[in-house]
């Protein structure tokens, strides 16, 4: 597994080579000032492999905002149901950030349980992930506090480490090594300077977040934590869930037109008022504070209880985009303080 080197100037070429046999996804920058977006190439905009979080996380390539999972058609007395294959070709993602990559493993815990979600499983199996060793984007980043190694992330098939005007590239799995081999014509041997540059990368991801050491059941948080205070500021807008790399709730909707129809799976969020509303009209979480309590206890307490670690990768998107400037780190701090006050 010797490292090879990809010149920044040859990135487009590398994408083209991979594109012959695979669908290639990479972060694309559109307007200046916008966050990059993970798009299938070719895409309008500039491919930018950089420590900048894409607006929608990597998870969105495995659980899309909305997908057709099957089509149905009525023929006389029969209904013919056709499943839609989730992917047409094998895929590769270039420049995935370590927080996003770690999040996939957290969602795997749910989606790959028996019986596994067929769409998620297929996409995971048929996608190679080339992660970028991340030096940290902004002060919101605290992946290092929750068990993510931003410079050598687990779960990637190959790793790009920035050095000079390009990246060292190393395969980490068989799948990853096959990708590196496929790129052989575009890669070269790294210089000693480049190898050293990659070796001394430093990440600014914070290690001292209140999210660190959160892995336990917050038994009394249901009663003690200031849910009312949080709800007072919260608009229930759900941006946190829309951008979260570990959120995976969905709803199923059928759309029918005459004798034809599709079944859609679309993102949903427990922050939405209608989320838990039942067909009878009964809604066990009609109040915003109960929805906030559910959301954060799920991520911090129930996940820890059930799987041994919290369902958060410290990416900081929630805090950065919340109109009320509140993120999960602050909630963790509030839980800890409430526990100390009541303990």
């Amino acid at each position, binding site marked *: 597994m010797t490292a090879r080197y990809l010149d920044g100037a040859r990135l487009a070429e590398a994408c083209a080579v991979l594109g012959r046999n695979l669908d290639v996804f990479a972060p694309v920058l559109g307007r200046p000032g916008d966050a990059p977006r993970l*798009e*299938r190439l070719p895409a309008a905009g500039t491919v930018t492999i950089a420590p900048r979080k894409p607006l929608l996380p990597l998870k969105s390539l495995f659980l*899309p905002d*909305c*997908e*057709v999972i099957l089509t149905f058609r009525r023929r006389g007395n029969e209904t013919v149901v056709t499943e839609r294959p989730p992917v047409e070709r094998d895929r590769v993602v270039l420049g995935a950030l370590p927080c996003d990559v770690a999040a996939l493993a957290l969602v795997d815990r749910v989606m790959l349980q028996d019986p596994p979600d067929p769409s998620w499983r297929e996409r995971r199996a048929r996608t190679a992930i080339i992660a970028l060793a991340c030096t940290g984007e902004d002060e919101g980043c605290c992946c290092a506090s929750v068990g993510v190694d931003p410079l050598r992330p687990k779960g990637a098939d190959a790793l790009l480490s920035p050095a000079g005007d390009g990246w060292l590239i190393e395969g980490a799995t068989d799948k990853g090594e096959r990708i590196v081999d496929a790129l052989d014509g575009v890669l070269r041997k790294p210089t000693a300077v480049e190898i050293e540059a990659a070796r001394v990368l430093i990440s600014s991801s914070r290690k001292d977040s209140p999210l660190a050491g959160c892995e336990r059941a917050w038994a009394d948080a249901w009663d003690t934590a200031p849910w009312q205070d949080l709800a007072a500021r919260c608009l229930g807008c759900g941006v946190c869930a829309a951008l979260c790399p570990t959120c995976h709730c969905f709803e199923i909707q059928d759309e029918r037109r005459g004798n034809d129809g599709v079944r859609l799976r679309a993102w949903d969020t427990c922050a939405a008022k209608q989320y838990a509303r039942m067909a009878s009209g009964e809604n066990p979480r009609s109040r915003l504070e109960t929805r906030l309590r559910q959301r954060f206890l799920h991520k911090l307490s129930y996940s820890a209880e059930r799987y041994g670690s919290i369902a958060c990768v410290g990416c900081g998107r929630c805090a950065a985009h919340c109109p009320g400037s509140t993120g999960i780190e602050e909630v963790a701090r509030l839980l800890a303080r409430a526990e100390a006050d009541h303990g």
Partner: protein
Amino acid sequence: MTAPFEPRILVFACNWCSYAGADMAGVSRFQMPPNCRVVRVMCSARVKPEQILAALTRGIDAVVVLGCHPGDCHYTEGNYHTRRRALVLDALLATLGVEKERFQVRWISAAEGAKFAAAIREVIEAVRDLGPNPLGRSHGTQAS
């Protein structure tokens, strides 16, 4: 060789005046072109802007709302609401760059069969000249 463009037009006609006017046109041998799908409503004010916007954003080539002449509404003031809404919708659609021919409100009384026929023909021709509604391109196609 592709078939020439035939616009698809959604027509809402109020039960008391314009639907009767459409009926009168039929009695007078007016052939309703296949371009139009007519939906009878009790009053033009029953037509929700959401219905009009849904039709236009999803690719219907034009929407026409027919009602009683202002002052003659069977429910006294329904068409006054329709008129206000239409003025706002006109402004909204103009802002979005949707051609004004694609949304029209016309007042047709029960006796105005000829006027109904003329209005329908006029709308079809105007929209045929415009071509298919460009907003309909992405309806039904998955983004990724």
